[in-house]
């Protein structure tokens, strides 16, 4: 509860803002966004809709006939308005576009199990690629350590804006990146097989159980950064993001999840269409590989139609830009969703998966993913269908600030 004094301070602050008037790029600006179609993801799309933004948050959403735009609001207009788009798994910010050692911090190869590595300690908020994906409409990104280790480290959620980590940060410790399959043995001499990878993973989980138990009982013990974060996983405070592409690795991931009961998402899942029933029964959501992933290695059986099949099966899923070791150095999750949209999924379902669907999987749907009163004012203004090749992003708004304009 704010004290009376604080309330007065707030009043004076608000007054001074009103006097200063709206300013582009200012979080306190009051903005009205008018769209020929506004996809709120909270009910049907609104024809001739209006979104009012005040103090970084969404103030009101409705049809132009019902929402009056206050005279001091700065007005932006577009053909299509959507919530800010969400990349459910990327490495930008830890991986930079030069692709040289100095800007690649996604995989530490000194040990195959390092869940204590925090994404925020390696995030470059001013990385060119972060700015680049923002210009394509991606406003929230789940970024962090890459695939390729049993536990490569942590991931976090940031907005694709801000000069520093603190300005960008939404959630500091979202998931632990775990990899099953042959991707591990190419980076480490041990584990050297897929089954040893699973054994190492299970041993680490079992090893942290005692730590977690003592912690919950308030027993004093020396801090162990690695066990601490695995205990957080066992306690359900963080989520395991398990990279698994072949059907057998997917089923193995689900087996481990059943054994330990931690919250989990599947990442990659190139052969998910072979084990839809098993995934559905587990309740585990999928962060699907980039639709246009090259059909090599463990992703050789990838299909452009997997997203549509996940949807038909009722499995929650979202799109990602993933990890690229060469060119292009990052993909654009919106472009990956577009190919799925054109291969059986359809435009509106692809849009759901890149907005509210992604926010739900990442656990940030209270803040982002839809245009609803009180949520962060993250919006993208398009001149057409967001997935059509020739559509342009006209304006990107994050937390009520205009952070990109095409002109």
């Amino acid at each position, binding site marked *: 509860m704010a004290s009376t004094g604080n309330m007065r301070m707030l009043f004076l602050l608000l007054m001074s803002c009103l006097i200063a008037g709206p300013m582009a790029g200012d979080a306190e600006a009051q903005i009205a966004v008018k769209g020929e179609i506004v996809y709120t993801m909270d009910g049907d799309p609104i024809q001739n809709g209006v979104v009012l933004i005040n103090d970084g948050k969404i103030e009101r959403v409705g049809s132009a006939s019902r929402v009056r735009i206050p005279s001091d609001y700065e007005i932006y207009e577009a053909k299509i308005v959507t919530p800010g788009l969400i990349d459910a798994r990327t490495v930008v910010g830890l991986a*930079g*576009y*030069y*692709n*040289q050692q100095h800007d690649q911090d996604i995989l530490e190869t000194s040990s195959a199990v390092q869940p204590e590595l925090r994404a925020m300690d390696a995030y470059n908020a001013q990385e*060119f*690629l972060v700015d*680049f*994906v923002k210009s394509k409409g991606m406003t929230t990104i789940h970024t962090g350590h890459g695939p390729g280790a049993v536990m490569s480290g942590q991931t976090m959620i940031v907005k694709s804006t801000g000069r520093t980590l603190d300005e960008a940060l939404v959630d500091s410790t979202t998931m632990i990146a775990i990899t099953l399959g042959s991707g591990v043995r190419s980076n480490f001499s041990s584990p050297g097989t897929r089954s040893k990878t699973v054994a190492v993973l299970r041993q680490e989980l079992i090893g942290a159980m005692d730590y977690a138990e003592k912690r919950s009982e308030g027993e004093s013990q020396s801090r162990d950064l690695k066990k601490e974060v695995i205990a957080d996983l066992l306690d359900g405070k963080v989520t395991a993001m398990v990279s698994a592409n072949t059907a057998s690795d997917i089923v193995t991931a689900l087996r481990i999840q059943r054994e330990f009961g931690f919250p989990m998402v599947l990442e990659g899942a190139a*052969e998910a*269409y*072979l084990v839809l029933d098993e995934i559905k029964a587990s309740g585990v959501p999928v962060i699907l590989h980039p639709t*246009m992933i*090259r*059909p*090599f*290695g463990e992703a*050789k*059986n*990838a*299909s*452009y*139609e997997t997203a549509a099949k996940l949807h038909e099966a009722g499995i929650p899923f979202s799109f990602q830009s993933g990890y*690229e*070791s*060469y*060119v*292009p*150095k*990052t*993909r*654009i999750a919106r*472009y990956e969703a*577009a*190919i799925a*949209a*054109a*291969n059986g999924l359809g435009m509106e379902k692809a849009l759901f998966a890149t907005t509210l669907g992604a926010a739900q999987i990442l656990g940030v749907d209270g803040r982002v993913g839809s245009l609803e009163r009180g949520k962060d004012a993250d919006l993208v203004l398009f001149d057409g269908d967001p*997935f*059509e*090749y*020739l559509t*342009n992003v006209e304006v990107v708004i994050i937390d009520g600030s205009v952070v990109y304009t095409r002109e």
Partner: protein
Amino acid sequence: MKVIFKLMVIMICMAAAVQAQDRPQVFEGAEIIPITGEAISNGVLIVENGLITAVGEAGSVSIPRNADRFDVTGKVIMPGIVDTHSHIGEGDGGDGSASLHPDVRILDTIDPRSSTFRKALSGGITSVNIMPGSGLLMSGQTVYVKPKPADTIEEMLIIVDEETGIYGGLKMANGTNPLRSNGSPGTRAKSAALVRKMYVEAQEYKAKIEEAADDPEKMPARNLQMETLVEVLEGKRIVHNHTHRHDDILTAMRLAEEFGYRMVLQHVSEGWKVADEIAASGFPASIITLDSPGGKLEAINLLNKNGRMLEEAGALFAFHSDDPIVDSRFLLRSAVMAVKEGMSRDMALRALTINGAMMMDIDDRVGSLEAGKDADFVILSGDPFSVYTHVEQTWIEGEKVWDRENPEDRKYATGGYEIFRASANQHVHVEGH
């Protein structure tokens, strides 16, 4: 040898003629984009014996009486796409034993049954320049093929020169890719010196042949490397030169001008920095678009506006996939990405078809829909520039070689279980682009 080759070519052509439809085929109702003429909103395309015999507005073209008629109302027909730089077919890349291999033929290692050919068809590609990699100064001879179903690579060849049997170009590279860990070449200048030295040798070899004046006694001993480079010096075999940085582009042009060979600049990532010089030189550019910059230091300035700036400068350019860098299924999309950065739609379509054909000396046969040309075309479900448009059918020489409605064909468009075998060779190429 050449006689045998010619005979082989004639036999192949005869076999193709036998296979081709003996009844005329008429495609009616589609929007036809002939490339070399205005788009026709309600068009008619007539094919006989694998060749186009007429293209025009409905009513303006007489329909042969005994024709097979195809109603393609609402569809879009454009020429088959020409890919000027690809690595489909699972052929071998560069041989690490030396830097210069003009004698090496990728033809000898391509698998005609590779699923990558079906993948290319599903992307609407009907002519393709398959090249060895860019890790060497000269990695070998390229091959121009049509990705049609075949038992042997010979059946797929597009012969450029009936006299010599030449069916491809010569791959060269400069910049950082051909620099070798053993230090030779270790620098750009040494790379250029090694290439120049070899062309000087080839000039001398060519002079000896000319001095011999068909006297077998005076002919120099056969040398496969020199024979290939003589073809290059005579303008019969075109060099495809991988190059990224603007100064490397200028170096490639300097060498080609010194020795007078014909050359296509490949990738040309910083072409936009020297677009006027490229246009003035007359060397064509084969370009790529990518979804984001970065990943390869030397190509960090590869921007999708490259094509638009080459268009503004008046240079001849075409798109390539460099499959697997861009999947063959997305070459059409690559052109749209350039339109997004300001290129005209007409030029983007030309750069997918006739421009590439011109660079490979096959524009008399493919690249546009005109009477007398090979009946290589794609039937699209709609606007070529829309993400929601699919390639519905691909035709080569009057034969339907891919049909999205056929599940056995469709799977190559979508991918899925055990459709593409993972090739270690291709995977390596991703790192050695």
